[in-house]
């Protein structure tokens, strides 16, 4: 039941942000839009499979939010650097690439953290998560392979994200 309500609240929040029913000039709230959003949110929450329970205690620790902010900063910086590197390789007349699929291992245990790590790797240009298997192994397509050793490749590809994700989720 609690999980259903959580889904409804999140859906309604997204709806309000997207439709923005508050008129900026008169300051009046568009009641129809809010009511429609409320109806759809309850309908969605009622028909959907309940969301998995979360450990509430973890959500109340402020340091996790601090590390989440650090993660966003580190992530954006890495994306920018790596984009410039890939742009250079694409624009270079001789196309200096050494592609290949390497294998790395993550120590992260939680599935959310692993998903975010795989997504962060994929969004960082030059690396693309192709397969994830049990035991924390990730197969990563690397545009410019610098090391075929799982440990060293892991350090180069994932270590900066992994440390911070561990502090957020574990």
């Amino acid at each position, binding site marked *: 039941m609690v999980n259903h309500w959580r889904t409804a609240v999140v859906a309604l929040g997204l709806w309000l942000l*997207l439709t*923005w029913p508050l008129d900026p000039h008169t300051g009046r709230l568009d009641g129809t839009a809010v009511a429609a959003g409320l109806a759809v949110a309850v309908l969605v929450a009622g028909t959907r499979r309940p969301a998995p329970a979360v450990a509430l205690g973890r959500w109340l620790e402020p340091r996790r939010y601090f590390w989440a902010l650090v993660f966003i900063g580190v992530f954006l910086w890495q994306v920018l650097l790596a984009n410039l590197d*890939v742009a250079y390789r694409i624009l270079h007349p001789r196309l200096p690439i050494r592609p*290949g699929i390497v294998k790395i291992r993550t120590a992260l245990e939680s599935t959310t953290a692993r998903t975010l790590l795989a*997504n962060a790797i*994929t969004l960082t240009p030059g690396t*693309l998560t192709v397969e994830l298997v049990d035991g924390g192994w990730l197969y990563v397509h690397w545009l410019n392979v610098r090391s075929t050793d799982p440990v060293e490749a892991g350090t180069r590809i994932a270590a900066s994200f992994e440390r911070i994700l561990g502090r957020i989720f574990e």
Partner: protein
Amino acid sequence: MTEGIGAALVGLGVAFDVVGCLGLLRLPDVYSRMQAATKCVALGTLLIVAGAVLTAGSPAVLAKGALCLIFLVLTSPTGSHALARAAHRSGTPLWEGSVLDRLAEDGEEGR
């Protein structure tokens, strides 16, 4: 002033999008192309949306822009991962100049 910064961000975003498209044409195999197509374009789109939000400067646009960015950052890598994984499972070869393919050596999981 903010409009100038907004326009600069949009211009930079378009530049990354163009490089991404060039990469799609120049790179040799499906995996490398996916790299260019999804990432340069993700950063490009991110910059364009940020520029649009700065130019418009209203809270309603800020909320929409922020939501667009969150969904983009969550869905774009998930989609390209699914495509690359499907390509590898269906046997699409890597470019012949590739250095190694650990996934093929280990064998696909779940087969």
